């Protein structure tokens, strides 16, 4: 069927079951926007391209589908960069369609020209520049396939302006032919047997769950493995939600702001089963001392993750939906023996958990951020989708929110992108209109993309935005307090911003909490109010995220705080 390149893109989106795109129009994508208009394709107009790409990312994380974002050439495409890098670091499937100047103008420093393919090469799973309309259907087919298969990731499709208008005999390819891309599902069964043998020998085994479990939707198999083995479990930031927070074997998050029990267990274990993890430096602390007593078994779909940071004694390369059931098959016949084998170890780790649980100092006059999170967690019963920005509040949510479900915690883990939270929450709400979406955000981060409050109002996305307003760039200030002699260089955010008025100006309900006694009532009101709501929660300026392992220290060298010091 003969159609324009722009129409071919719309058809391809339909073929990929894309039901919504996020974007912002401009010169190079005028023809594509005309086609969107004519096809009446659902498009969410954000206020900034960065908002659009984070929204597509939040949509992808919440739904598991590929997020799609559209931007124009030059500045439009360049504004996507932070969002693409965010998605890349956390392995989020995304297709970014960007306009490029016309073929004849490429390379001449034309108006609104930027080499977005060159710019995004280190932060994409793959990228394309389409200069011939007949390549378009194949490229889009490949882009979606690459984005969602194997270890997912963002793909950029840069399309020259004249390609959108050129005629093509459209036929969407049935299959992808890529000689250099064969995502792995099943790996080598022999490796599973070896792991099983190691499990039988371990006295102090520990399961370490990462974002791979959430991404691959393999939480159910993981939960069964945890139940069948009786082994204690820790999670990375990205692994939260794959096991319910109140599971009796779950010790919480590991790493820089991990729990005492999780960090101690990692230091003392003799077998560490890393499942869909990448041993990020925020997890390992001093790499040479990380799990130094343990044999490390690494389960991952990406062979390049093996031995990248931590040396693996055994590797299981393949999809977790293959490896976890395969291991379970062997484990379940001897489940009782495993539980017997780890009885004293379990007692030891649970004692750590009992003796040094997460604590914070409270003050009857102050609204403690941790208390807010605990309250919200009780109100939601761990259901719904929790989104954060980056910083202190992010770590407190990881520590104190009672996650129950996989894909219920959306946060920029790898890149640590401030400004991510608000647009990502909108994207999640767009993808899951019936779910409660709650954003925790700092007064610093919310300002980085606060323009998207207007988007929330325009589309009536009923996101609840809880701003922890401590008038400071909390995490950076914490480091200044701990490691820079308390010299608060440019981390004070004291000003005259009125977040309630800001919300109202954007068409969003604004509420405020200044005293602890207001907290319950206002939070309940916020959750009960239809449409988007901003709550300006005034929290104390100086509160530290603890425990804390200083950068480059061993995991058991934690600063505990409270009565410990």
């Amino acid at each position, binding site marked *: 069927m003969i159609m324009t390149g722009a129409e071919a893109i719309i058809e391809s989106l339909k073929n990929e079951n894309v039901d919504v795109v996020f974007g912002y129009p401009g010169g190079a994508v005028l023809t594509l926007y005309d086609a969107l208009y004519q096809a009446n394709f659902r498009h969410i107009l954000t206020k900034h391209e960065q908002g659009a790409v984070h929204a597509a990312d939040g949509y992808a994380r919440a739904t598991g589908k590929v997020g799609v974002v559209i931007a124009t050439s030059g500045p439009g495409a360049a504004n996507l960069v932070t969002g693409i890098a965010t998605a890349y670091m956390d392995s989020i499937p995304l297709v970014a369609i960007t306009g490029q100047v016309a073929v004849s103008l490429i390379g001449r420093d034309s108006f609104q020209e930027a080499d977005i*393919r060159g710019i995004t090469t280190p932060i994409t799973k*793959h990228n394309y520049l389409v200069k011939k309309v007949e390549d378009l259907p194949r490229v889009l087919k490949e882009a979606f396939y690459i984005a969602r298969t194997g270890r997912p990731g963002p793909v950029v499709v840069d399309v020259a302006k004249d390609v959108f208008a050129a005629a093509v005999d459209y036929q969407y390819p049935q299959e992808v032919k890529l000689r*250099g891309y064969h995502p792995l599902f099943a790996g080598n069964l022999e490796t599973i047997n070896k792991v099983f043998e190691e499990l039988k020998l371990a006295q102090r085994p520990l399961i370490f769950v990462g974002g791979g479990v959430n991404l691959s939707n393999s939480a159910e198999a993981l939960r069964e493995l945890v139940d069948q083995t009786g082994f204690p479990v820790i999670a990375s930031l990205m692994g939260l939600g794959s096991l319910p927070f109140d599971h009796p074997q779950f010790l919480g998050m590991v790493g820089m702001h991990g729990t005492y029990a999780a960090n101690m267990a990692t230091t003392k274990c003799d077998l560490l089963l890393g499942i869909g993890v990448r041993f990020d430096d925020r997890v390992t602390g001093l790499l040479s001392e990380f799990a130094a007593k343990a044999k490390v078994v690494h389960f991952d779909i990406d062979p*390049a993750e093996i031995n990248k940071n931590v040396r693996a004694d055994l590797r299981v390369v393949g999809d977790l939906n293959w490896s976890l059931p395969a291991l379970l098959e062997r484990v379940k016949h001897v489940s009782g023996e495993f539980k017997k084998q780890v009885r004293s170890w379990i007692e030891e780790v649970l004692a750590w958990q009992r003796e040094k649980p997460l604590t914070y100092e409270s003050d009857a006059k102050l609204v403690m951020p941790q208390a807010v999170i605990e309250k919200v967690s009780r109100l939601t019963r761990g259901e719904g989708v929790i989104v954060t920005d980056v910083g202190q509040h992010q770590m407190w949510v990881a520590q104190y929110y009672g996650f129950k479900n996989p894909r219920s915690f959306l946060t920029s883990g790898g890149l640590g992108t401030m400004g991510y939270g608000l647009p990502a929450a909108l994207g999640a709400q767009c993808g899951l209109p019936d779910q409660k979406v709650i954003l925790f955000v700092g007064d610093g981060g919310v300002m980085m993309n606060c323009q998207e409050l207007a988007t929330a109002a325009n589309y009536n996305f009923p996101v609840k935005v809880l701003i922890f307003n401590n008038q400071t760039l909390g995490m950076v200030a914490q480091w200044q307090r701990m490691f820079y002699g308390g010299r608060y260089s440019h981390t004070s955010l004291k000003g005259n911003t009125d977040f309630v008025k800001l919300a109202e100006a954007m068409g969003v309900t604004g509420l405020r909490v200044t005293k602890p006694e207001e907290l319950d009532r206002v939070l309940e009101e916020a959750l009960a109010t239809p449409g988007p709501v901003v709550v300006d929660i005034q929290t104390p300026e100086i509160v530290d995220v603890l425990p804390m392992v200083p950068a480059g220290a061993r995991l058991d060298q934690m600063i505990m705080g409270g009565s410990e010091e």
Partner: protein
Amino acid sequence: MKHTLAVLVENRPGVLTHISGLISRRAFNIESIAAGYTEEPDTTRITIVVEGDEIEQEQVVNQLSKLVDVIKISDLTAVESIHRELALIKVKASIETRSDIINIVEIFRAKIVDVNRETMVIELSGDETKIDALCQVLKEDHGIIEIVRTGKIALSRGPIPAKDQ
């Protein structure tokens, strides 16, 4: 230790950017890189010499393999193979010194490909150490004006091509 990798990639625009971008981003220690067409018009073959221990070498292979345009990587260090590099060397050559240079060239089985009143250009192919040795002699006795080297290319012995290894 050094590893010589044969990397077969799609012959498409942007592929070399992807490869060189990856190498620089991951801070891999690459000694040489040489690319060219192959017996298949849609395939380019890149020979990469990597310096590093086994773990680093494994990372280079695994990370390069992740690139969608990379079809196949085989480690030619592990198999019997022929390694060659081509060099063009422009050396100072007066009428008096020409005959000595010709002697040296013959000993190394090199070729003289250009002569004028002040210089000669010598072509030599061989392994790295042989080229190094010739350069050393010419530099000390005559003076080298400029050198260009292709970087190593390598091919396995026996009937099995890299793509099937």
